[in-house]
């Protein structure tokens, strides 16, 4: 037998054809299976241990990020989950489920030899129709019901989270925070203007919203306790200056020839700092905040003069204070004028649990708000923060899209019904493919039932019937509490229509990308010891064809794989141990 030809660099995996596609689909399903159980109000959480750090979450995007998926095709799912998170903020699990389910429903077609291009084209059409249908179904906001509408969407978003029991507490907070931004016209700056602070200890019910800025008491020096901790309408000076007695510059050196000058140099150094402090006091401010440290001397100096100061305030907090109080951050203490100061109605130091908070309220700019979260454990608060963040994003989206659809699987069922009806009018394979797509959409209500512990087959049958028979049945979804079906729109399970539009779009696109792949070429890693450059061509021990066929095994047993079963071989196994 002739020796094989080495075409590609040694160590390169190539795998091609239908088996490759099937294996990609399997990998995606394996990933979807891990997050499947977290969907919906009855979804369970995942505990992910990354080294010493433990995360408990049921947020799809968070889990996907932490899973460290290595399978190249399955990474696409991580991508869409992330894009959903950035674009909408919620629905990150459903988009992954949807994409994986579409692929799963296409698998039989691939196995039967239907050309993937035909599949893609029909999926794309179906996706387009689904999006159009959602837009058609969406119910626009009415002006005076706005508040109520937003509350409902916030509740729905919180419903599937850890803090679902306290949604009546958080939903109004979230809506109030976003509304404040909306009225100020800076909805886009949500992430920088609304802060979420965590304090462990206490009870979730002790979480509260501050209409203004709040941050934890910073590291302080002697003299801090003597300061006045409460002001009404104070002037607030924001600095980026270090107020401490120290050399002005690292590489400066003082050389004196006359010993009598020594004292003058020492005096000069003190004068530098006192000048700065005087400038602060003279500006008329009662509160001095700095990004950099404020030392003992300055603290006591300010305390003597009835001022309040805090050093080492984080950048984000200082910017929020600047935004809220109308002040601007100064990098120099020279030439401070009155208009550079900010102000607020009330400043006070508040005791929350065993932490002390500096709280600025009644600010002239009513844009910023701070949500302070309390809770038993660190993980619990971290997950609460993610949940509140999702709710914030959802409310923001609702305001932007201005319309809502019913959740609880209702909109998926309705779109599914329409697609099914439409499919019957199509000739040829498209009919089957669009029907399969319609069926894939049912994964959302089905998973909702399963997670709640009900028989999904019965409920789904009831839902399908309701949507097909009853003209008013379009908003019927899963009733996860009673294990039956109900009009979720009436119940107030509302989601912004943008959320659904984006998840249908993203899931369809992801499915198409994966179906379009017929070959994986894996170049060896740069530092891979197997990847030495041989520079010879007649010494290949195995023929090329063998290399191609064996690529999958090679990939599973090779340097870059984990030890889990087929399909998840690329995933760094973390959960199972």
């Amino acid at each position: 037998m002739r020796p094989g030809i080495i075409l590609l660099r040694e160590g390169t995996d190539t795998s091609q054809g239908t088996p490759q596609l099937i294996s990609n689909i399997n990998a995606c399903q394996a990933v979807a299976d891990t997050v499947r159980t977290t969907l919906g109000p009855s979804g369970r959480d995942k505990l992910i241990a990354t080294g010493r750090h433990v995360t408990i979450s049921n947020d799809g995007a968070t889990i996907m990020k932490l899973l460290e998926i290595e399978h190249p095709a399955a990474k696409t799912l991580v991508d869409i989950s992330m894009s959903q998170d950035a674009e909408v903020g919620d629905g990150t699990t459903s988009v992954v489920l949807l994409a994986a389910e579409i692929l799963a429903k296409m698998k039989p077609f691939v196995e039967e030899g239907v050309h993937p291009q035909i599949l893609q084209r029909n999926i794309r059409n179906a996706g387009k129709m689904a999006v159009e249908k959602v837009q058609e179904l969406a119910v626009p906001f009415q002006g005076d019901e706005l508040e109520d509408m937003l509350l409902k969407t916030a509740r729905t978003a919180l419903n599937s989270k850890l803090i679902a029991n306290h949604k009546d507490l958080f939903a109004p907070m979230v809506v109030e925070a976003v509304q404040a931004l909306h009225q100020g016209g800076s909805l886009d700056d949500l992430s920088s203007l609304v802060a979420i602070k965590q304090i462990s200890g206490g009870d979730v019910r002790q979480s509260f919203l501050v209409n203004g800025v709040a941050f934890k008491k910073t590291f302080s020096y002697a003299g801090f306790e003597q300061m006045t901790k409460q002001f009404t309408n104070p002037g607030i000076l924001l600095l980026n200056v270090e107020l401490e007695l120290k050399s002005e510059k690292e590489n400066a050196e003082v050389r004196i020839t006359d010993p009598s000058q020594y004292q003058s140099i020492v005096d000069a150094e003190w004068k530098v700092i006192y000048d700065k402090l005087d400038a602060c006091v003279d500006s008329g401010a009662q509160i001095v905040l700095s990004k950099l440290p404020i030392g003992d001397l300055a603290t006591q100096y300010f305390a003597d003069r009835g001022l309040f100061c805090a050093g080492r305030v984080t950048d984000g907090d200082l910017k929020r204070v600047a935004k809220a109080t109308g002040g601007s951050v100064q990098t120099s203490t020279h030439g401070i004028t009155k208009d550079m100061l900010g102000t607020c109605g009330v400043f006070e130091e508040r005791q929350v649990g065993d932490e002390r908070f500096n709280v600025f309220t009644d600010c002239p700019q009513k844009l910023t708000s701070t949500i302070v979260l309390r809770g038993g454990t660190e993980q619990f608060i971290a997950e609460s923060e993610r949940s509140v963040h999702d709710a914030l994003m959802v409310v923001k989206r609702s305001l932007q899209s201005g319309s809502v659809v019913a959740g609880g699987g209702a909109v998926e069922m309705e779109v599914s019904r329409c697609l099914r009806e439409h499919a019957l009018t199509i000739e040829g394979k498209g009919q089957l493919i669009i029907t399969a797509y319609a069926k894939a959409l049912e994964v959302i209500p089905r998973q909702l039932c399963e997670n709640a512990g009900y028989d999904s087959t019965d409920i789904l049958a009831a839902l399908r019937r309701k949507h097909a028979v009853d003209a008013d049945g379009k908003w019927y979804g899963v009733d996860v509490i009673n294990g039956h079906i109900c009009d979720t729109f009436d119940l107030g399970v509302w989601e912004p229509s943008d959320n659904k539009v984006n998840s249908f779009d993203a899931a369809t696109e992801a499915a198409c990308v994966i179906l379009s792949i017929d070959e994986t070429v894996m170049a060896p890693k740069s530092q891979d010891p197997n990847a030495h450059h041989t520079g010879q061509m007649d010494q290949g021990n195995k023929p090329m064809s063998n290399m191609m066929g064996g690529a999958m095994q090679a990939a599973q047993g090779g340097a870059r794989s984990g030890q889990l079963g087929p399909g998840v071989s690329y995933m760094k196994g973390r959960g199972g141990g």
Partner: protein
Amino acid sequence: MDDDPTAGSVTLRNIEACMQLSRMLRTSLGPQGRCKLVVNHLERLIVTSDCASILKEVTIEHPAAQLLAEACQKQETERGDNTNFVLAFGGEILWQTSQLIAKMTWQPAPEILAGYQRALTLVENKLLPDLVCDGVTDLKDKHQLLKILQPVLASKQYGSEQTLAPIVADACLTVMDAQGKFNAESVRVCKIPGSSVSQSTLLEGYVAMRGLETVVTNATDAKIAVYACGFEASSTEAKGTVLMKTAADLLSYNRTEEAKMEEIVQGIAASGVKVVVTGGNLSDMALHFLDRASLICLRIGSKWELRRLCQAVNATALVRLGAPTPDEMGFCESIRTQELGGKTVTVFRSHETKLATILLRASTSSVLNDLERAVDDGVQAVVQAGKDGRLVYGGGAVEMALSMALQQEASRVPGLEQYSIAAFGKALEIVPRTLAENAGWDAVRVLADLKASHAQHGTESVCDVGIDIERYGTENDDTGGTCSMKERGVLDLMSTKLAALRLAVDAATTILKIDQIIMSKPAGGPKPQ
């Protein structure tokens, strides 16, 4: 071993290697081509059907196959499109040669190569120009641009061409001068993950992928000063110590530094500049004074991007801090920040300068990157059309017509060349065949149908029958498969096609001339691991 005449033939082994490469990538040809998922040596993930991009990311070991890959890369850099054609045709012509060699002496006769060159000349001078069916006369006509763009984009991003083509066409029109000339670099692409392809838009002017540093975030009719250096107090490179002799020195030391910066900023503000762009660091002190003077400041890290911006606003990048002269200042009508998909971007809009930014949206980064490549190819196609606007029918129609003409022509040539000209013609069939295969047709039957329609076609006009890649409605495998390319509007640039043919033939003949490969051992001892 001895009785197998093929065993020792280097030529045959080279052909085999090239065939493998060509077969591997053939499934990506055309709009219905499948993608490859490439994981490159840095573990980056790329999903694409663009041949040149795939080849760039994998290392090809075999020297003969490398030759073919290089031809493909050259096509990408020169023409930007039809890269897979080079590979598919190059591989096929080598395959046909191996068949010829088998018929002959097991040694590649020089006549074979001569025949290929002759066939190429024939195609170049006579056959292909005869098949020209349409032309781009006016590059400023959007309709005509769309005609070229749609097939190019469809072959990369099938299904999205209707969205992308008008955007690319508008972008090209924006940056064109009165003669229809433009630089392909003037069309920029900005990728933001999220949303879907249909949300992609065109923005006139320059888009920087970051927000502004200062409090003021928008301005109109602004003069712009661009600094290639950092906006901070300059420090000496050599290590120096500030020596102070008296207490007064110590007191004034800090003041001077501040005063200097204040002076610079005030100088800039006094010159009428509203926007400052810096390529390096921005010190807190500088920002403080910029804010005080109500200027806008943007930081751009990459030198390349900075040059782009200079081009967009007609500014000269300065390397020293200080107020710019009026010549050095740039100008733009509006500057503002905008949030897109969770990212803040800064948009410089200007009507005078020629720069367009295509904002691409898609849910995954691999789609985004593939979209970018498609847009690049589209822009390249428009540039090419500006040089030579002659069009031929795509979808395998022109290849089929050439193939048949060549095979007819071959029969008039005496000697061994006859075979090779015929083989050349035969090899061209690879394009319609692969298109049909990739679209899921029974390729053998469809090819026969296609051949028949071309043979029945009269000589008075160009036959426009090609492969029906859309395959709408018809699910029956026994009929259909061909359709009129004229109705579908599938047109290719002749010059691109010709360049691809030339490169493929050159690569193939070079490979066939090789009778021995000598490889030196890599220098030094064993490679460091």
